[in-house]
């Protein structure tokens, strides 16, 4: 009963914090409006025009289909990178020698421009979902790996000793002591990686003509339909926000209730 009340209050706080997010977006919209008034509708349609265009798009079932296609591609790329990166990062975090061997390769992966990946992947996989998903995965794999390995390598060994002194076995120590510490580091990085996955997916779709939001953007560009292009951008950002605040942030706040407790009253989120 007590924990239920706490949960309701936490959820309430989370929803209430939406107002501050809305306020931030309003400031952004105000600047947008200023630029619109300076340069006119052809260069930059007003926020309201864009919203209307987005609304018109959402009335269409095929637009939803496109959104869903892109989101699912970005998410599967993100999930792929998340699983591979976390597992590999954990292994590397425990073995400094492996970490040293892998680090240059991570730098290499980060250094290759995403566009080069797209070209290569188009040659390997053709212009379908696989190319887009893999591009998204390749784009966020290095940061997930670095986050997980950092999280493991910087774990508090004193806690490990403490658990050992209580007679905990290796598996229990890993699950109950090491993983929570690793997730602390990993979560902020996952948020970043998710954004990267969406960006990379849209870009890959645009360049590979692989459907989804990217292709819709390409069509808007050829029609010089700025309002439509902006509407698509708005929709893809909304999809990203929906995933972040619907999936990642709730999981994070669930795991990090203690951080919330540490904050003084009035600055909670």
């Amino acid at each position, binding site marked *: 009963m007590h924990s239920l009340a706490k949960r309701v209050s936490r959820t309430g706080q989370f929803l209430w914090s939406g107002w501050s997010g809305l306020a931030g977006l309003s400031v952004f919209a105000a600047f947008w409006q200023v630029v619109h008034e300076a340069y006119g509708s052809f260069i930059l349609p007003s926020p309201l025009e864009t919203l209307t265009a987005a609304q018109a798009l959402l009335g269409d079932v095929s637009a939803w289909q496109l959104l869903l296609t892109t989101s699912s591609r970005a998410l599967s790329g993100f999930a792929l990178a998340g699983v591979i990166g976390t597992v590999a990062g954990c292994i590397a975090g425990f073995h400094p020698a492996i970490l040293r061997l892998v680090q240059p390769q991570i730098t290499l992966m980060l250094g290759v421009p995403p566009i080069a990946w797209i070209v290569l992947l188009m040659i390997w996989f053709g212009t379908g979902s696989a190319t887009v998903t893999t591009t998204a995965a390749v784009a966020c794999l290095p940061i997930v790996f670095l986050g997980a390995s950092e999280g493991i390598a910087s774990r508090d060994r*004193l*806690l490990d*000793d*403490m*658990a*050992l*002194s*209580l*007679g905990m076995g290796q598996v229990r120590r890993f699950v*109950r*002591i090491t993983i*929570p510490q690793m997730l*602390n580091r990993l979560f902020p990085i996952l948020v970043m990686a998710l954004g990267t996955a969406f960006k990379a997916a849209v870009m890959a779709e645009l360049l590979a003509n692989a459907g989804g939001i990217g292709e819709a953007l390409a069509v808007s560009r050829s029609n010089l339909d700025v309002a439509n292009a902006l509407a698509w951008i708005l929709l893809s950002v909304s999809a990203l926000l929906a995933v972040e605040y619907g999936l990642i942030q709730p999981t994070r706040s669930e*795991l*990090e*209730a*203690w951080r919330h*407790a*540490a904050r003084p009253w009035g600055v909670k989120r």
Partner: protein
Amino acid sequence: MNALALSNIGHAFLGRTVLDRVGLDIGEGELVALVGPSGCGKSTLLHIAAGLVEPRQGSVIRSYARHAVVFQEPRLLPWATARKNIGMALPERLSGRDRQDRVLAAAAAAALEEEDLDKYPVQLSGGMKQRTAIARGLASEADFLFFDEPFSALDPALRRHMQDIVIRHAGNGRRSGLFITHDMTEAVRIAHRVVVLERRGNGISGERHVPLTPGERDDRMIFETVQRFMKEDPLFRHVEELDERRTG
């Protein structure tokens, strides 16, 4: 019958000898205070005895069932409430109800209020954190407790309170224990026997039995014993020397 028998322990960090030929026996129900100047290898010896460090030489024979360590820092999991931190010492097989009871009993033994059990470590004061750590040690139902200078960061009043908790649960003959400290008053107050580690870790310099049992000694007697040890007894001459070079 000894609860813990260390014989001929030797250890080195990166080729630098920290402990050499150290032997120490602790009887059942006995609380031994191990003193020595800073950096003489007391903590290393405790880590070896508790199985956290593998000694280079010598043997450790434990004839108790379970032990727990109270460290210098509380070492609580920051993401778990005090209740969960205490509960992590309990065996997995217990039912929820049993768990609850044991956590409450351990918390009460360490003078923790029930309302504090749902707080996270960041919300607890230094003394409460250390009490939670003690409760975790007590909850494990260990019959041997190790204390690695657990109260050196606390203020004197709180330290006294903590010592009383230790006396109540380890100095009364029900559990054995090894208590490391560099505070002679603390050693004389809580232990049956005070053992001095040689200042370079070369074996045990000697030991003194403290009269009466812990808890029966009054402040005057403790003060006089400490004075006698420090002023007249050559064994304790080096105990308060500071040599931070050899920490580890």
